[in-house]
């Protein structure tokens, strides 16, 4: 695998022993297929910063279950109905994902959206997932900050100083989604911890995944948060090209044509070696 970034295998991680992230209660919503196929891996859906499990519960959760996979949507700490965590850092979010994944009966497919895709990418380097799916991945960095600022200076400016970034509906969704829905979703967003938000000012370089899982990267060339080049850069880390959904916004999970990316993921999962 031609992953960029840290190539060395890291064996010694004393911090994982000496400073384990605090235990919290985490929200997990589940949808089961009518007939469980033992060969189908469970799917764990990780929302982006600001979202909770609710975002997947709108459409994807049931749809993926209908396509034959046991689907689980979680809320990172400080999000949705998980316990509050005002000081959470990226490591704590990664811990949350792996805790839920390791609690599933079999090796899980990790799906992450937005900055949740970054959390998933980091989780992939600590837990040998069945597969990884990165949807409109936000890996942070100057480019992300700049495009946020250009499109929504008022909402994004505080982020530079560790404040809460506010995303407008039109940054997230295409025009195909009704203004009412777009507004409703955008209003439900609640900021992640400032520490985690601040981590996105720098570009994050997740370590190489363990166990060499198949990885899929999806996005839209018309995403107003993740530039196409940024999307391609992420895909390139895994030696693949992104799967594109032109005309959709950043939020492939809630946008009007949500079914297309969800089906693409399921089709891909059905073909896993």
């Amino acid at each position, binding site marked *: 695998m031609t992953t960029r970034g840290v*190539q*060395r*295998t*890291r*064996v*010694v*991680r*004393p911090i*994982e*022993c*000496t400073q*384990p*992230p605090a*235990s919290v209660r985490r929200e997990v919503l589940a949808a089961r297929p009518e007939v469980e196929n033992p060969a189908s891996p469970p799917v764990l859906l990780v929302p982006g910063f600001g979202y909770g499990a609710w975002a997947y519960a709108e459409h994807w959760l049931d749809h993926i279950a209908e396509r034959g996979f046991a689907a689980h949507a979680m809320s990172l700490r400080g999000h949705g109905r998980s316990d509050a965590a005002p000081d959470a850092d990226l490591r704590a979010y990664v*811990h949350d994902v*792996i*805790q839920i994944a*390791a*609690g*599933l*009966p*079999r*090796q899980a497919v990790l799906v992450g959206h937005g900055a949740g895709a970054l959390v998933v990418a980091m989780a992939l380097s*600590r*837990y*040998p997932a069945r597969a990884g799916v990165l949807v409109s991945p936000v890996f942070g960095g100057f480019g992300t900050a700049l495009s946020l600022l250009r499109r929504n200076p008022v909402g994004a400016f505080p982020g530079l100083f560790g404040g809460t970034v506010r995303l407008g509906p039109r940054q997230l969704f295409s025009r195909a989604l009704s203004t009412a829905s777009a507004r409703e979703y955008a209003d439900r967003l609640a900021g992640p911890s400032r520490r985690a938000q601040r981590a996105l000012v720098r570009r994050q370089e997740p370590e190489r995944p*363990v*166990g*060499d899982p198949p990885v899929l990267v999806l996005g839209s060339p018309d995403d107003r948060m993740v530039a196409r080049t940024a999307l391609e850069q992420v895909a390139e880390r895994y030696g693949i090209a992104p799967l594109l959904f032109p005309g959709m916004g950043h939020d492939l999970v809630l946008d009007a044509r949500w079914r297309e990316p969800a089906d693409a993921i399921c089709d891909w999962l059905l073909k896993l070696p």
Partner: protein
Amino acid sequence: MTNDNATAPVAAIWRGGEPVYDRGETVCVIGAGASGLAAVKNLREQGFAVDCYERETAVGGAWNARSGRGPAPASTHLITSRPCAQFPDFPMPDDWPDFPRHTQMLAYLERYADHFGLREHIWFGTDVVRVEPAGPEPSGVRPAGEPSSRWDVSISGQRGGSSRIMRYAAVVVANGHAFLPNRPSYEGLAGYRGQTIHASEYQGRSQLRGKRVLVVGAGNTGCDIAVDAGQVVTTCWHSSRRGYWYAPKYVLGRPVDQLAIRVQTMRLPQRLRRALTQRALRLAVGDLTRFGLRAPDHHFAESHPIVNSQLIYQIGHGGVVPVPDIARFGRTDVTLADGRVIEPDLVIFATGYVPTFEFLEPDILKTGGGARPRLRWHLAAPDRPTLAVVGLLQPDTAPLACAHWQSVLFANWLRVLDTAPERAREFWDRHAGADERRYHFAKVSDSPRHRFEVSHLVYLRALEQALNDLEAVK
């Protein structure tokens, strides 16, 4: 590298009049305790087909209390804290306590086996009785596939099924080292009329009630049993032949192994780190001689750490009476080294275990005359690169992490041996120096008990280097 023949072995080879079923490139793993499970998972992850043989009918090894052979009695709680005790890529639930019970450890290992689909590769109730080189004179690094680097493994069903010989490309021995009791001998022991058992036969407190008990040995087992006894019997003598450091489970409100790792990763000279640790322990535990124990005869970390918060407490309550070594046994009494005579009803020898490799000729791991094997990285037989022993270690903490990375290294090594034998040979020769290393920052005594003692930090750093070195030659 999965071999299609593997699923339907055909015997075309014969050995001593018996058919040999060639399993092609399949790797054999002996034992489905924590180490064996890690080996199966990591070999599978590298694409190898695996046949694992487990004598018992369940996974878990030392933690499988149902087998009745495990060394961990019902009252055992881990001495390593949860984040240090788990596999690095499969955490325990973080709402478990700092020091989980032995039943939780078993549940965890069962979950690991299910999560990664390992059971389908394990043959339960099957004993490995012999492991022999397939070829006449195997030595040095050979490309995989040459007959001499392969192994003939004889297996036999526990319920008396006939035995069979299978041929494998490589073997991982993960048979655990806490099964064969180390039974000390004493003058007069044969004529002693009281009951004597080894700690491995100790199941729980009910065995002790109403008895005067003598516990021999102050490893973690001896201390755990003495504490059990201190709570239910009127008299428990606890005999140890030297002074030790008794670390409590918590220091400054943190699990002691976590604190130790903090100190060991400080950028300070080793002497200063040691002074810091010993000072913290003195503050937490105080002067042991006040309790009738001997002062430690070594620096901290120079012998296997004892972690027990309750022993000192039990001594303070009078439930446990520390006594010196045993001089000799009489018909009904025991004379101690200081001349005292005591009359126990039950003597429990918590004197540790001896590793055995009854299925291997002694020359293979150099275990002739009862010697303990010396392996490269405590892992691989120096002149048999397709044979590894996983889990033959006594780390200060994190034994599962050590077994995990051992099996990752070995799986990677087999891969390189297969794809780039030339470079594999170079790598192997370059690391010959690893054979004599002790992997500890302290001067651990070279007694048999400490043959496998490592600092997990020093050891894992060495494995990290070897792994990355191996990646570079891939």
